[in-house]
């Protein structure tokens, strides 16, 4: 057995020996990146020393390890896609890619990976590009610790920070993305993990998810994006420990869920958004251990949502905790903490003895008649709210939390 393995190892040894290291830079063997790419063989390492490389569209067709020393700058002159990767097992690290071209036809990106497997993009700086990192038909790729920045003003004039299309098993971690159209864009991407990214001040969504099943996103921060985060037409998505903050505007939501099923939303915090979560056509989602604080609307649950469980969440200091657009209630609320709850707890088990109706009549009025917001907190409205809480007439009386908590959960 041992002999056999030694035999195979010795067969592999020559392969290791041929793998070379190629240096690119001033007074090095190659001064142009493209020449080095063409000269390299699969398995080589290319070390690029600091400098300024303007070579139009670079095309990489070899499985190489591309290392930038002292942050070499690769510039696309606002005309070209900067680096096109068309090989498996490529690692790109330590570069600064800037000024990619702009085109709505070809979608040029700073780094665009075509039909490849095991490509890693890490520790790069991407500045002022149309698309940042663009993956299409890729598998097992890693994008981590990149800083991606653009200065988009209009949605149509700028691409996405990290754009993934028809891919599988991606790992996207520790990136900082700002100023793009969508921070991270997923379409037809499955079995992927997005974690510890920071997506802020993008023009449209911090994270945009379409038709991407079985993905998880964990511990990301989405702040001050044009319209928050959107997850649409997807099933089996896990959203855990993310922070959604300061997404302000009428069509801005901390988290927009549309036609989602079997999702799991836990441990997230929604702070200072116009709407924390907006749910439309959502089925069988579990929303638990989240914190909703200082939002205009904690959750907007449209009447076409079904079998969702909202449990063990904190609702603190929101203008409205919940609103809905109909009278049909097919969702379950239990064991949440509502700071507007005014019941009592005689047996001291921390569960209020009086059920809580989180839907205030005024949130229904405002939903139907938005200008009525002007009357909010007037004595008239307070009276209306009080009487409705006693005897629900307009609001559905099965919209109720039967076990409201007396004290907030420590989340």
């Amino acid at each position: 057995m041992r002999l056999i393995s030694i035999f195979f190892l010795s067969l592999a040894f020559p392969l290791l020996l041929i793998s070379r290291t190629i240096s690119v830079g001033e007074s090095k063997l190659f001064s142009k990146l493209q020449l080095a790419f063409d000269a390299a063989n699969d398995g080589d390492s290319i070390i690029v020393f600091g400098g300024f490389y303007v070579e139009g569209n670079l095309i990489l067709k070899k499985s190489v390890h591309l290392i930038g020393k002292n942050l070499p700058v690769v510039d696309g002159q606002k005309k070209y896609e900067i680096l096109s990767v068309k090989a498996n097992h490529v690692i790109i690290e330590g570069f600064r890619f800037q000024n990619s071209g702009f085109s709505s036809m070809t979608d040029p990106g700073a780094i665009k990976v075509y039909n490849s497997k095991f490509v890693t993009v890490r520790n790069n700086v991407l500045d002022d590009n149309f698309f940042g990192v663009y993956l299409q038909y890729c598998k097992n790729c890693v994008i981590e610790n990149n800083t991606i920045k653009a200065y988009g003003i209009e949605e149509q004039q700028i691409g996405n920070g990290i754009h993934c299309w028809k891919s599988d098993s991606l790992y996207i971690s520790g990136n900082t993305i700002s100023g793009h159209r969508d921070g991270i864009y997923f379409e037809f991407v499955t079995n992927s993990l997005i974690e510890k990214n920071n997506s802020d001040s993008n023009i449209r969504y911090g994270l945009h998810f379409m038709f991407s099943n079985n993905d998880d996103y964990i511990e990301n921060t989405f702040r001050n994006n044009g319209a928050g985060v959107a997850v649409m037409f997807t099933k089996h998505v896990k959203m855990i420990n993310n922070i959604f903050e300061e997404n302000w505007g009428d069509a801005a939501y901390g988290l927009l869920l549309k036609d989602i099923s079997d999702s799991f939303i836990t441990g997230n915090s929604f702070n200072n958004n116009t709407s924390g979560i907006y749910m439309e056509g959502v089925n069988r989602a579990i929303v638990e251990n989240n914190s909703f604080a200082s939002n205009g609307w904690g959750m907007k649950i449209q009447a076409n949502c079904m079998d969702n469980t909202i449990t063990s969440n904190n609702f603190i200091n929101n203008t409205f905790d919940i609103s809905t657009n109909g009278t049909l209630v097919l969702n379950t609320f239990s064991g949440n903490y509502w700071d507007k709850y005014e019941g009592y707890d005689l047996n001291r088990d921390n569960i209020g003895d009086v059920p809580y109706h989180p839907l205030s009549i005024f949130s229904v009025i405002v939903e139907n008649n938005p200008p009525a917001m002007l009357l909010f907190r007037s004595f008239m409205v307070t009276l209306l709210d009080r009487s409705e809480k006693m005897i629900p007439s307009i609001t559905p009386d099965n919209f109720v939390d039967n076990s409201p908590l007396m004290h907030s959960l420590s989340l």
Partner: protein
Amino acid sequence: MNRITKFVVINIIRNRIVLIYTILLALLSWSVFSLEDNSSKGMLTLLNVILLNVPLVSIMFSTIYIYNSSEFIELLLSQPIQRWRIWLSLFSGLAISLTIAFLVGAGIPILVYSPDKLGFMMVSVGILVSVVFVAISMFASILTRDKAKGIGISIMTWLFFALLFDGIILFLMFQFSDYPIEKLMVGVTAFNPIDLSRILILLHLDVSAMMGYTGAIFKDFFGTDLGLILTFLLLILWIAIPFWISLIKFNRKDL
């Protein structure tokens, strides 16, 4: 300070009602802030106090005080003092004492627990509301000589601004909900000093909700510096106009 004003202020303080009002405000404010775990909930309770109780006390106390001092006014009129000076002194005496009462009773706890923009807004709005309703009471009490009638007018005015006005607006909103009435609504609120004050505070208290579609229209108006100045100017108009009309009436009145 004018001697008549000084006399009015001292007289009011001796009266003890304003003193009790101050103590009640203070008790309420301190207890509200120490009971609630976050100060914004306390602010909400105090907002209701400012919008409901402060106007009520201001308008009722002032109306009754003016009726009760009719003999004092007649006495002053027999002296060589201009009529407008007497009326103005009476107004400033009432306004000063009620403002001090509000500042001591509610202003101090508000500024202690919430020394930010919201707190300052709350205090200034409270003072303005007090003075607005003193002015309105001057107007109400000059309308008729009958004390019961005058007090009735005051109560109805308070009820109208605090409750009925919003009810009518809500009704109209539903009747005209098919029309773009947002901008009109901004204009309509100018006719109610309590609504003006409420919206000023609402924009600070519910800033996230106010960023919604219609909220944005209101915020575009009330939230800007210009809107803020305009709203304060409107509140000052609410002081100036009722007082001015009452002054004209007082000047011509055969007492």
